[in-house]
């Protein structure tokens, strides 16, 4: 092969490499920026924190925890499950379930469930297109030194804006 022929082949090869690298960068940028940021895991964490603070502070149960019910939980805990009206959402994008049980006997003392109850059915499925669920357990005392186990399940849907 003469010198000129080798140069021609090399330049074609060089352009092919350049094209592949450029196409790769374009594909990666589009796949990264073409998808929305998924913040639902952070939202479930913040929601669980808010629910926990409403029941328990500094390791001790709040004095009014026994007065909390499904009907007053949102207002007592300063929560608002209204959402923007995009994608025909109807304030059905959140769910919180709290179980308080006796630590020693495991007997359930209180259960509070607010929001869209159907969301919890999807918690077994691990996929971006399903709601994000977070279950957390904690232990607490009251002033009489009774021990409690608190289980908090927080669920956020908002799939259309996060996947």
């Amino acid at each position, binding site marked *: 092969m003469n010198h000129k022929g080798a140069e021609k082949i090399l330049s074609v090869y060089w352009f092919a490499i350049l094209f592949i690298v450029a196409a790769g960068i374009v594909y990666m940028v589009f796949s990264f920026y073409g998808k929305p940021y998924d*913040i639902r895991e*952070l939202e479930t964490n*913040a929601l669980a924190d808010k629910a926990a603070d409403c029941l328990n502070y500094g390791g001790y149960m709040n004095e009014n925890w026994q007065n909390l019910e499904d009907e007053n939980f949102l207002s007592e805990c300063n*929560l608002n499950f209204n959402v*923007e009206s995009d994608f025909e959402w109807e304030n059905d*994008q959140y769910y919180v379930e709290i179980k308080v049980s006796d630590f020693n006997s495991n007997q359930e003392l209180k259960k509070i469930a607010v929001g869209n109850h159907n969301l919890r059915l999807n918690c077994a499925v691990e996929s971006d297109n399903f709601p994000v669920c977070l279950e957390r357990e904690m232990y607490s005392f009251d002033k009489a030194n009774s021990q409690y186990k608190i289980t908090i399940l927080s669920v956020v849907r908002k799939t259309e804006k996060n996947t």
Partner: protein
Amino acid sequence: MLFLFSKTGETSVLEEKYTKQIALLIDSAEPGMTIDLNMEDAIKAAGEENFPVNEIVRVNGNVVTVRLKEDSEGYSYSFFNDIDVRANFDTASRTKYYFIITQK
């Protein structure tokens, strides 16, 4: 490189990024707090689009909206923390917004 920078600096990407960031900040906030958020790139982008920089962030009820262009509806996202939030453009630095959180 130019393509990469144009994509990362797109107003729609910035609108979504800051809306969600603000919603998360509010969800974790307590009444009495004031939160500073550096939004230099978004403020610069709005300036280039001749959009009033003091109207970039709007909080309506429990929905936050960030808008950087006149012909865009902006990006909205809800937060669940039931508190009052006032969004203010920091006229001193002109690079950030601050959020005053109060009890409802």
